[in-house]
């Protein structure tokens, strides 16, 4: 309990510790999150996604500088991949943004994916919630470098920015499904590089092919050179335009409904699974099932049905 109350009083170390407890799956973290939940829902969440090396961290750094100039408090959650072999990770997003580290109005947290797919860690939403409860006006979530299919961010962020760079592929890449469908804004970073005009054109053409409902938000393609701070003010203006659109059009209600449904379902799935699976381990059933499958004595379909029938007696 102590952590949540300290966090609400502005204790940075308590916040950092709770994030750790969340990431490490400590049961106590849930009790703390219960206390914080009524204090969340105020931060505007911006998602930044795109391929590795596109300049996501540098953009986050520059966006943070602009929002700080406006006097807003900024929380940053930066996700990098975990090694599938050792479980270790190098979390290097801070390299680009650590000039903000000792600014009391900024809190940066690096997270490792820990085997979670989708471009984020399992803990990302809850860590962002802690920042929200800390009173951050803006929370920026930077995904791992993504390929084509890591789209979890779109349910989490009010505005999702897809960052691309010149030279990654032809215009067929741009009409494939996946991350190119999820942007509320598209940024072609490193816009001073050769091929930038073509990339902008291809993205714009792709967007023109989309069917938009009347009054829907039309995603724009912006050009930035994040390392020398070009195009950043325009990007912030466009994010703010999207934010206004969300509220004026009422789309925010739909967004929140979907987001809350997702949060609830994910939690339910995780807890149900853990509940049942831990029990299987305790009484040695798990190993017996695997042995049964190896000998083709038992099939996995019946095994699961049996376990569910025992676990949830009387209901189906």
């Amino acid at each position, binding site marked *: 309990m102590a952590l949540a109350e300290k966090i609400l009083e502005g204790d940075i170390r308590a916040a950092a510790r709770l994030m750790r407890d969340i990431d490490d799956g*400590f049961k106590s973290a849930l009790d703390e999150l219960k206390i914080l939940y009524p204090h969340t829902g105020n931060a505007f969440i911006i998602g930044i996604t795109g391929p590795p090396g596109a300049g996501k961290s540098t953009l986050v750094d520059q966006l943070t500088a602009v929002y700080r100039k406006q006097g807003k408090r900024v929380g940053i959650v930066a996700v990098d991949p975990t*090694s599938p072999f050792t*479980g*270790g990770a190098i*979390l290097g997003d801070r390299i680009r943004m650590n000039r903000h*580290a000792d600014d009391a109005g900024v809190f*940066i947290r690096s997270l490792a994916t820990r085997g979670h797919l989708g471009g984020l860690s399992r803990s990302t939403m809850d860590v962002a919630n802690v920042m929200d409860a800390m009173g951050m006006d803006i929370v920026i979530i930077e995904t791992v470098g993504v390929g084509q299919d890591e789209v979890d961010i779109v349910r989490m962020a009010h505005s999702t920015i897809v960052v691309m760079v010149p030279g990654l592929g032809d215009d067929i890449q741009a009409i494939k499904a996946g991350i190119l469908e999820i942007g509320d804004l598209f940024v072609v970073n490193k816009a001073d590089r050769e091929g930038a005009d073509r990339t902008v054109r291809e993205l714009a053409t792709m967007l023109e092919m989309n069917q938009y409902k009347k009054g829907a938000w039309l995603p724009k393609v912006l050009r930035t050179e994040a390392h020398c701070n070009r195009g950043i003010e325009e990007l912030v203006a466009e994010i703010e335009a999207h934010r206004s659109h969300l509220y004026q059009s009422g789309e925010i209600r739909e967004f929140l409904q979907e987001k809350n449904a997702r949060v609830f379902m994910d939690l339910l799935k995780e807890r149900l699974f853990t509940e049942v699976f831990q029990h299987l381990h305790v009484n040695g059933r798990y190993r017996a099932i695997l042995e049964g499958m190896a000998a083709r004595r038992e099939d996995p379909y019946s095994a699961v049905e049996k376990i569910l029938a025992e676990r949830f007696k009387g209901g189906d």
Partner: protein
Amino acid sequence: MSERKFRVLVGKPGLDGHDRGAKIIARAFRDAGFEVIYTGLHQTPEQIVAAAIQEDVDCIGLSILSGAHNTLLPRVCEILREKNAADIMIFCGGVIPDDDIPGLKKAGIREVFTPGTSTEAIVQWVKDNVKPRA
């Protein structure tokens, strides 16, 4: 699932740009299963401590080859104490004369690794001397 993952911050305080050693150490910790927060070059003591607190690391490893270790490293320890974070253990590596080591340890640096130390020895030392938080 509720098992602590080791988190270590690897950084380079001050002005020297030689980050090969820091990167090798970061990689060695990664391969040993640690989560390594790498803050990169040219960090002030204030930035290092702020990052260590926000990331809730168990320890800080600093690489320094500029010769400014007697100024910068005790300053990091001092700020950790000011911020009520002296429980975060700190060690360093680099070109550090033997004569300077007692002074650094007195200032709060728990161990000093000089050239020639193997990465295995450093990782093992951290495993032996740092417990992830309860």
